[in-house]
């Protein structure tokens, strides 16, 4: 079943009368359970696409069905609700609250979801186990390494059991070894049935996905099955 279905999705930015095309006429379908990489050079429009697909922004044209619901006409509050309940985000720069503990960071989406204290505790403990940071639960996030921070971010993204995870250059701020650990993690999540979309400009990252969508100049240039896919747990880490 398609979780994402766009037709002629377009985003045009206007700044002091000058129009800049973010993306134009993107037709994209993503099914549940897929592991997709969106790849393109900087300025290609891949970040714009991610913002639209992640319900962080509204398109200026075209249609976007997310989980069967038309997004382009929704209010801010409804978009916030969708982001909270159905989408998990992993960012290049982690975007954790640095002075709070690992557990508190993982709980954040649950706080905005009005979960009870018991639910928050139970879920965040489960998630911290899942990413292997149980012994760091009460550490301040600022004291963790980059790789550990990104694992906290993944745990946070999973907290509300989302329909889809968007990862924006998730290995961009990590050394290659930590990066591989994160990619391995995504592959394992995918194996468990999670839908994952990674945005990257590096092909060795994209090759971890099943399907690669190439973006250039605001449009889909190529949409293909991954040739010679890298399965990190089998091939080991590169470099």
């Amino acid at each position, binding site marked *: 079943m398609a979780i994402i279905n766009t037709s002629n999705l377009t985003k045009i930015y206007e700044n002091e009368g000058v129009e800049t095309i973010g993306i134009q006429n993107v037709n994209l379908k993503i099914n549940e359970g897929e592991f997709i990489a969106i790849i393109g050079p900087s300025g290609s429009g891949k*970040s714009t696409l*991610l*913002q639209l697909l*992640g319900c*962080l*922004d509204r398109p200026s044209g075209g249609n976007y069905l997310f989980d069967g619901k038309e997004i382009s006409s929704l209010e*801010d*509050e409804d978009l*916030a*609700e969708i*982001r*909270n*309940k159905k989408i998990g*985000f992993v*960012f*290049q*720069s982690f*975007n954790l*609250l640095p*002075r*709070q503990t690992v557990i508190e960071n993982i709980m*954040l*989406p649950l*706080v*905005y*979801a*009005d979960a009870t204290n018991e639910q928050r505790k139970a879920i965040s403990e489960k998630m911290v186990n899942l990413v292997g940071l149980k012994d760091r639960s009460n550490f301040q996030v600022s004291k963790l390494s980059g790789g550990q921070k990104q694992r906290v971010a993944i745990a*946070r993204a999973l907290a*509300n059991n989302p329909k889809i995870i968007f990862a*924006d250059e998730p290995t961009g701020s990590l050394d290659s070894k930590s990066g591989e650990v994160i990619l391995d993690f995504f592959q394992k999540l995918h194996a468990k049935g999670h839908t994952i979309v990674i945005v990257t400009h590096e092909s060795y990252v994209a090759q971890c996905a099943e399907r690669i969508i190439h973006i250039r100049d605001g449009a889909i240039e190529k949409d293909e099955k991954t040739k010679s896919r890298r399965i990190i747990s089998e091939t080991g880490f590169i470099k």
Partner: protein
Amino acid sequence: MKLKDTIKISILGLTLHKTRSVLTILGIVIGITAIIIVTSLGSSAEKFILGELESFGTNSAFIIPGRGDFGENSILTDSLKEKDVEALEKESNVPDANLIVPFVFGPATVVYESEKFHASLLGASPGNQQVDKLELTDGEFIINEDTTQKSAVIVLGSKVKEELFGSSEAIGQRVKIKDKTYRVIGVLEPKGQSLFVDYDDVVIVPYTTAQQYILGYNYIQRIVVTTYDAAKLSGMVKDIEATLRESHNIEDPDDDDFIVQTAEDAAQTFGQITSVLTILLGSIAGISLVVGGVGIMNIMLVSVTERTREIGLRKALGAKNKDILTQFLIEAVILTGIGGVIGVITGSLISYVGIILIHNFAGINFPFSSPLSGAILGVGVSMAIGFVFGIYPARRASLKSPIEALRYE
């Protein structure tokens, strides 16, 4: 989102920027402190004055020369004479009168051997002892014969006695005022400053003596008339007015050349004066609160800009606009609320110290009024300021885009 969670997030936001939080509330602290000092000292002064007036009794009427309006010729000094006292003393005129106490006052320099003292002179009637609640440590007070015979007798305030005689006996000694010799018949107990007179600085002679030998005029400056029964006071005031009009040949009350006042009238007048002063000074202090509020707004705007990423992240994770709005609004209200509490505490402390200083240096016993209503008002007002000046920055925060979370550092 639950309010409890929002409050937690707000408190966290404040504790992460302690120095800034403290500096931000400084304006509010100063404003509230100033307001509390003004209102607290104002109400203390008012209480003190009312207390003093009360001590004159709710059963006394004061007769003052002068006209009721404040127009031309309203100031008179010579309209009350001995014949008025005689008229008031007639029982048929003022049947409810108990004591009739005419008196005069002025400055006087008292000389004993080589010692000199610049004292306040009270030309008194025997009734002054009761009306002014004067206690004697030694000797006796002026009696009726002293006033009728214009006796050269004198009662000394405690400080006057101390300055002139030190620890030696004063009763029976002779002092001089304007080259006339007076025999000391009594010494007052120390009493301290009261509203109009410092009785420790005072010398008391019969009013008739004072008129003739010291002041050199024959009119009376004040007459106090007391009644046994406070309920009869207003009736007595009417009798007094009627008696004096008859004595002065006045038909139209508008032509009155005297004013009859009760403690209640005076209390009202003083109450009005102190309220006006309190409001005036309070509103000046209020301006500093507005300035403090603008400061809050300024810092909040900086804070919102600085925390753009955090706001974006929260929104990306599902925070609604109103969650962010509430978070920043609560931060502002908590900040100013704390500022209000600190201001109330420092303001109260400073007022308390001020009252002690006034007591020690001026000898006036201001009652300290715990400004509870002022405290609640102060904290309430400062929280309201946080709310008003926090709305704009909080709204700015709430309208930030979740895309901000995706921007790279």
